[in-house]
């Protein structure tokens, strides 16, 4: 009896806090995007969806977000692989093993604020350059914030994700008994470089793949960081969707909802791919 009550409660919780919000949110967004609800509803229309695919700014924004996410991850994953393989012990003991956790204490908003103060033209870095006589006027300092290549955004995501991946890899290194595989390979005559590239790196990447995919999704949908450090065009997906949904032109709202749905479908597809590769603890 007791077990049944708990089970019912568990289903209910899952329903109320996961299934219901998704279904309801989606339903509403979809209805809005085809003109069937909202204060300025027009009746059934697919015009907003058509516009989505003809207006290259929307697809461009998806591509741009993907590029920023890919690039940030490429940097942080490879740097973390390098550092955690080269100096595995420094991050498990001593001062550095504490310091490396500090960036994890930063919410996105704080990290974005800091890097704005650090990298903008009137920022800390620019002042240091000026003091060192590398620059002699404020405009000589390069554009690092709100810039074309999203440098400030990538740096901020790197700052947040690099320590995460170091800690992840060091953890995996221990739990997956990688050391033993290396010893085995080396006893069979493999060189250090060979064992690193043929065994360790593929193993670590494979074991952390689903974490990398999740991180990709998080950067892809990030809001606070691009809103402070990004530029007006192109915009990251979240910024674009929110702008369409909250701007003066009330006729843009349905398109904003269409973007929200397109984004969610993309994320769901990624999660499906990720789930396929995973085995749950109970199945092992």
């Amino acid at each position, binding site marked *: 009896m007791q077990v049944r009550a708990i089970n019912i409660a568990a289903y209910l919780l899952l329903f109320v806090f996961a299934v219901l919000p998704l279904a309801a949110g989606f339903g509403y967004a979809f209805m809005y995007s085809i003109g069937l609800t909202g*204060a300025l509803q027009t009746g059934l229309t697919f015009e907003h969806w058509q516009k989505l695919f003809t207006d290259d700014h929307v697809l461009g924004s998806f591509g741009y977000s993907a590029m920023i996410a890919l690039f940030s991850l490429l940097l942080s994953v490879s740097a973390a692989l390098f550092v955690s393989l080269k100096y595995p012990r420094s991050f498990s003991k001593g001062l550095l093993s504490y310091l490396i956790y500090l960036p994890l204490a930063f919410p996105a908003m704080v990290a974005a604020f800091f890097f704005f103060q650090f990298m903008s033209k009137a920022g800390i870095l620019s002042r240091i350059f000026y003091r060192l006589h590398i620059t002699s006027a404020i405009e000589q300092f390069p554009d690092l914030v709100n*810039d074309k290549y999203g440098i400030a955004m990538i740096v901020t995501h790197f700052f947040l994700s690099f320590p995460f991946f170091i800690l992840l890899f060091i953890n995996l290194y221990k739990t997956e008994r990688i050391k033993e595989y290396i010893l085995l390979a080396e006893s069979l005559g493999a060189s250090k470089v060979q064992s690193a590239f043929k065994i360790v790196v593929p193993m670590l990447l494979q074991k952390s793949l689903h974490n990398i995919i999740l991180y990709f999704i998080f950067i892809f949908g990030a809001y606070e960081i691009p809103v402070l450090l990004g530029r007006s*065009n192109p915009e990251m997906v979240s910024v674009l969707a929110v702008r369409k949904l909250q701007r003066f032109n009330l006729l843009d709202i349905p398109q904003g909802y269409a973007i929200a749905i397109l984004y969610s479908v993309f994320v769901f597809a990624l999660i499906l791919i990720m789930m396929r590769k995973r085995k749950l603890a109970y199945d092992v």
Partner: protein
Amino acid sequence: MKFYSFIFSLIILVACQQPKQENLNLDKISWQKIEEKANGANVTMMMYQGDKKVNRYMNEYVVPALKKQYNITLNIVPGQGKDIVNNLMSEKEAGKQNSEIDLCWINGETFFQLRQIDALYGPYTDKLPNAEYVDWENPVIRYDFQQDINGYETPWGESFFYFIYDSAKVQNPPSSLDQWQTWWKQNPGKFTLATDFNGMTLLKSWLVELAGGINELDGKFDEQKYEKYATQLWKILNDHKQYFWKKGETFPSGNTSIAQMYSSGELSFTSSFNDADIDNKVGEGVFPTSSKAYILSAGSIHNTHYVGITSNAPNKEAALVVCNFLISPEAQVKKNDITLWGSRTVLAYDKLDKEWQQKFDALPKRQYGITPEQLKSRSIKEPEPEYMLRVFSDFRKKVIEVN
């Protein structure tokens, strides 16, 4: 299990708790009764909070004064025009009876859109005792972006748009569009505009200049005229944006960042809608003392900002009392004070008692700002709100998104 059912019943309870809003009939109630009903109420006001001085005026003067005089607790929540419209529209869509917002700071296109979705309460301004001091004969006050306010919003203060430059660095500040074009070419990277109402007002000023004066754009929104002048403007901007800040590839989202970049010397110009801005910022040491204010050749767009009551405000009596307080001579003197906010009063000087006239006279004078004489011949009225809405969306489509 009990706990969960508790939570659920709580949700359902909250969801069903929608006491119908009685519509306040102003003809049948005396002002004294209204004040009685307002006693002890909570009022939420949504307003633009991008100006430190304005925030200080609200937090350090208006909030405590309302508490003391009327026992009303005023909560201020941040949100610009688009947020106000968006929130109230969502509430309408959800059929919410009691709005989360009682009052909002609005004008122009926001007033237009809120009226469109019927989200404002009114007409009510006649009922406010202090309305007798308001300068209703002034068309800038009576018409908000050429719309008759019809008692649906309380005039709160007058503003006009002006430019600020550093006279130590810029000798002859450009005034006409032709001069701007030459200046941009000669000084790349030192100019930009924000994508908020300040930047859009600048664009409207240029539209007026291209149209050869406000008369051409006066009256109802005219698609053909708009297209004619806007196309010219977008062309000029697209031809020159390579000389803008960051090569015109991005624009700041708020005027605050432009002011910051002006003070650090990254930009040569900033603009303001707040009369006392330049005096304040020079006084604080944020702007260089060589800063000067001037008006562009199109003239200075001159408007009034207002306070509106939402149609579903839970406590309209308290909202009315707040509106009445905001146009009291006392609150207006403080608002006019450049050490506090410094926006011009909406009250007619002649209608005030001697005592208040003296208080207005005794206010500290502006040192850097535009003088009333300078403004007199140069002030231009706001075109219809649709011009603003179009400029907002077209600037993005036809300038920002064009590479």
